[in-house]
């Protein structure tokens, strides 16, 4: 525990010495990076030591805040969230040396590093707090630190708008959490978190709904995902990696911690989470497919992956409601593993995307092309991340989706018809997976393959070594979970037991997870066969001439502009989802026999923020100002009437 707390403090203060360093020197940023690395290493060591010890570690110190106490608790459930956090925070700090060096960003580099360390430490505190007040305190620090990361480039209007929307949604969610913890304290009589399965769940409808709203906002569950796409796009890439890979997961953690308190879970809780998960999964990926801004697209994929995690949680909750321990185990193990996996591969993707943006200076997919030749390291890392996020073997995404699928298939042998319906999550997952594959083939193909579409893409430098290191490290972590998933099975089992203590007694914990090593073995088989046959083919075709043009069906003057773009690749598929996306199309009409040069563009705005919330708020504001003009009309007689009416009202009230 002491190692963990020391690591947390070191991370929190990592940016402070830099404030006193020169605006243009290396010293501050190197010291900050070193402190973050030492901090996360120490915290991770602390967590691993606790896991090896077996029993959860507790720390309890008095705190002068009324009702508050400095209570920390490290158990396997928290450890599953903290370990990827350490990896991503440390990797991001190292990446920042090459991506956001102080000499290129003298204006905001120091501020960025201050809040980066603070955000990392605040999340460690959120994940280990054992007291409601401490949790809320850490939650607010996290929200505010993330706000400053989103608005790093505050001179740009886009970043200011993103920061504003992020702040509004973070605080709307936090408001719900304040109410939630007050209600929880009424139930238990103290601000200390209750033990797992110690509360009767039946009357806790309001608590659950508040939790779903507050934590759902942070996690980005559809339709509460509004802040995600803009905030992730506006922040520097290693901050986006942290936001998408880890900050979202604190929402999932909150939901899990909250549901673990209750002994009895009503079935509709599970169904609600499951349905929200299916909605987020399908619409998240469909919206992603329609985007042509690289980082916005990745952000929508976070919505999709949060949906997949929610499907796993929903199945596990149903397993608890219907007393099917195996369903609980598989669903929760899948959801938790996907939390880890998404943290790894999404950070990897954001870091590689950052390397592309850094080199080309644009986020527009249709301006890229042929970057594989110029950025071989970035391309391989992005390819690994893309294969992983599509849930394809031999990487880690497949393992967690496999567990969630198995949970859905287990539901089919349930006793009650209503439980058996939960199996319908499987085709929804399959559709999500198919769409994710289409989307990432598009991104990889358009960015790294073919010919450069604009001069911006004809760059000639790959990621700097300090950026390459974290990317390769994350890629190896993805491969490790994909190829040796059995190594994580004990941790997953322990975490599930901490979430639902009755599971341990009801079912043999190892049996449902037993095929995991076989999944890993199949991954090895695939990898080795691919490498073997690929090596043979490479050797066989070594002498082939490589100086001819691509077959253009006889057309002799093809240009790179004629290549399929991201938008044209996705168009056929997006048109199948017209009913939910309402893509806007501008131009593209051709008139006459000899048409003049025209232009065509498509744009898919967010279904909730741009279609409902902003127009709705605008109308509400207009209506309010109309009403104000009627009430405050500046005529003395009206005001006298108001006074008279108020007097009359008060008289009636008193006389009664």
């Amino acid at each position, binding site marked *: 525990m002491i190692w963990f707390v020391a690591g947390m403090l070191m991370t929190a203060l990592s940016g402070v010495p830099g404030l006193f360093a020169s605006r243009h020197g290396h010293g501050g940023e190197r010291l900050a990076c070193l402190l973050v690395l030492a901090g996360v290493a120490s915290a991770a060591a602390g967590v691993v030591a606790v896991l090896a010890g077996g029993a959860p570690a507790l720390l309890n110190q008095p705190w002068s805040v009324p009702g508050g106490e400095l209570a920390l608790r490290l158990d396997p459930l928290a450890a599953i969230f903290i370990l990827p956090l350490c990896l991503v925070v440390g990797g991001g700090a190292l990446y920042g040396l090459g991506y956001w060096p102080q000499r290129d960003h003298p204006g905001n580099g120091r501020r960025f590093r201050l809040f980066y360390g603070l955000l990392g430490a605040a999340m460690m505190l959120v994940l280990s707090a054992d007291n409601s007040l401490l949790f809320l305190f850490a939650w607010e620090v996290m929200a505010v630190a993330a706000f400053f990361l989103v608005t790093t480039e505050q001179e740009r209007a886009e970043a200011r708008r993103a920061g504003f929307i992020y702040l509004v949604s973070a605080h709307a969610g936090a408001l719900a959490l304040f109410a939630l913890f007050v209600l929880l304290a009424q139930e238990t009589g103290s601000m200390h978190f209750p033990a797992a399965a110690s509360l009767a769940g039946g009357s806790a409808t309001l608590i659950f709904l508040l939790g779903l709203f507050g934590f759902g906002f942070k996690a980005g569950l559809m339709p509460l995902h509004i802040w995600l796409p803009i905030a992730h796009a506006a922040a520097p890439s290693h901050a986006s990696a942290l936001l998408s890979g880890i900050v979202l997961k604190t929402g999932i953690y909150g939901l899990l911690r909250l549901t673990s308190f209750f002994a009895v879970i009503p079935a509709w809780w599970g169904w609600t989470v499951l349905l929200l998960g299916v909605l987020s999964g399908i619409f998240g990926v469909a919206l992603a497919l329609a985007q042509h801004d690289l980082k916005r697209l990745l952000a929508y994929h976070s919505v999709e992956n949060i949906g997949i995690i929610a499907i796993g949680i929903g199945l596990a909750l149903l397993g608890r409601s219907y007393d099917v321990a195996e369903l609980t185990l598989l669903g929760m193990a899948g959801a938790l593993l996907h939390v880890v996996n998404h943290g790894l591969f999404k950070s990897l993707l954001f870091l590689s995307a950052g390397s592309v943006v850094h080199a080309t200076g644009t986020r527009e997919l249709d301006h890229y*092309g*042929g970057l*594989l030749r110029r950025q071989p390291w970035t391309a391989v890392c992005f390819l690994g991340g*893309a*294969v992983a996020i*599509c*849930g*394809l073997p031999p990487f880690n995404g*497949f393992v967690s*989706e*496999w567990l969630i*699928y198995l949970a859905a*298939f287990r539901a089919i042998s349930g006793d009650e*018809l209503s439980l*058996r*319906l939960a199996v319908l999550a*499987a*085709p*929804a*997952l*399959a*559709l999500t*997976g*198919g*769409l994710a*594959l*289409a989307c990432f*083939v598009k991104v*990889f*193909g358009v960015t*790294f*393959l*073919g*010919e450069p579409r604009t001069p911006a893409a004809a760059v000639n430098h790959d990621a700097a070594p300090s950026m390459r290191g974290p990317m390769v490290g994350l890629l190896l972590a993805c491969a490790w979970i994909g190829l040796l998933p059995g190594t994580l099975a004990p941790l997953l089992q322990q975490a599930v037991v901490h979430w639902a203590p009755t599971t341990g007694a009801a079912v043999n914990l190892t049996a449902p997870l037993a*095929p995991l090593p*076989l999944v890993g073995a*199949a991954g090895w088989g*695939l990898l080795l066969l*691919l490498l073997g*046959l*690929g090596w043979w*083919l*490479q050797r066989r*075709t070594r*002498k*082939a001439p*490589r*100086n*001819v*043009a*691509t*077959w*253009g069906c006889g057309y002799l003057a093809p240009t*790179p502009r004629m290549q*399929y773009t991201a938008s*044209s*690749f*996705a168009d*056929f*598929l997006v048109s199948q989802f017209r009913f939910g996306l309402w893509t806007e199309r501008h131009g593209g009409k051709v008139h006459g026999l000899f048409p003049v040069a025209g232009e065509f563009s498509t744009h898919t705005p967010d279904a909730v923020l741009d279609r409902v919330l902003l127009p709705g708020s605008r109308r509400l504001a207009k209506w309010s100002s109309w009403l104000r003009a009627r009430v405050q009309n500046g005529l003395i007689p009206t005001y006298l009437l108001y006074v008279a009416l108020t007097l009359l009202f008060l008289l009636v009230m008193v006389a009664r």
Partner: protein
Amino acid sequence: MATHFLLHLVLLLCFAPLLQGVIVKTKALFAGRAGAPLLQPYYDLARLLRKDCVFSRTTTWVFLAGPVAGVVVPVLASLFMPFGALPAPLSFTGDLLLFVYLFGVARFFTVASALDTGSSFEGMGGAREVTFSCLAEPIVLFCLMVLAGIADGLSLTALFGPHLADAWRGPEGFSLGLVLVCLFVVLLVENSRIPFDDPNTHLELTMVHEVMVLDHSGPPLALVLYGAALKLMVLGAPVVRLLLPFTSGSLAGDTLVFLAGMLLLAVLIGVVESTMARLRLIRIPQILVGTSLLAGFALVLVLR
């Protein structure tokens, strides 16, 4: 175990191109022509493997990954799929999802290698391919769920076990019939056959799968063709098993029943290709969604 393993691989690797020959022959007979010899696909493969190849200057190593994944994936996936009454050499709980996702790997790299050429035609083919297969994926899952509801166990060997013969006669028979239809549709879509795609079309604009491999030549093209043949056999095996759920008991008998079933399936595909026209492109997603509904209906019947 070792004999099973070897028999499985030998059946797959040696027999697969023959199915393509049978389809072509059937179509030729329908058209009143003599047609190419049955063994023509083998001759083609041998010729292509001997040849040299040419690469576009745009391509990179990803261009070779498509053909490689196209061959490796069906071979690996076949190890989990029982061939008729012959059980699969490898089997574990949940291998059915591995089977489905392995084909995702092949699709990813095939489309990536198409995009690697920078040709708009190949991009178009890739876009169509991913659209169709992402609509076909829920159908496969619905079918597997129906079969999982009937069987006890979650491996492909358990799903296509000997209980199917009884299930056909029982109340689940109707669901199995629907599953058979749906799996046949998936087989046609995934292997780019008429009415979803025409493997013999001569216009790049109308192609789906063929346009993605326009730039491949020599040994890579041989791998593409061989991979397509393997995929047809591996995806045809479940259809054949559903049609002929008999277990004779002897290894030779089981093998013969399976091979006869595969030949029958090839003839059936040839008949479909000869008697149907290709669907318009925009109709294909509608047909696939309709098939999903059919498969969903089969599931409702089983869940009830």
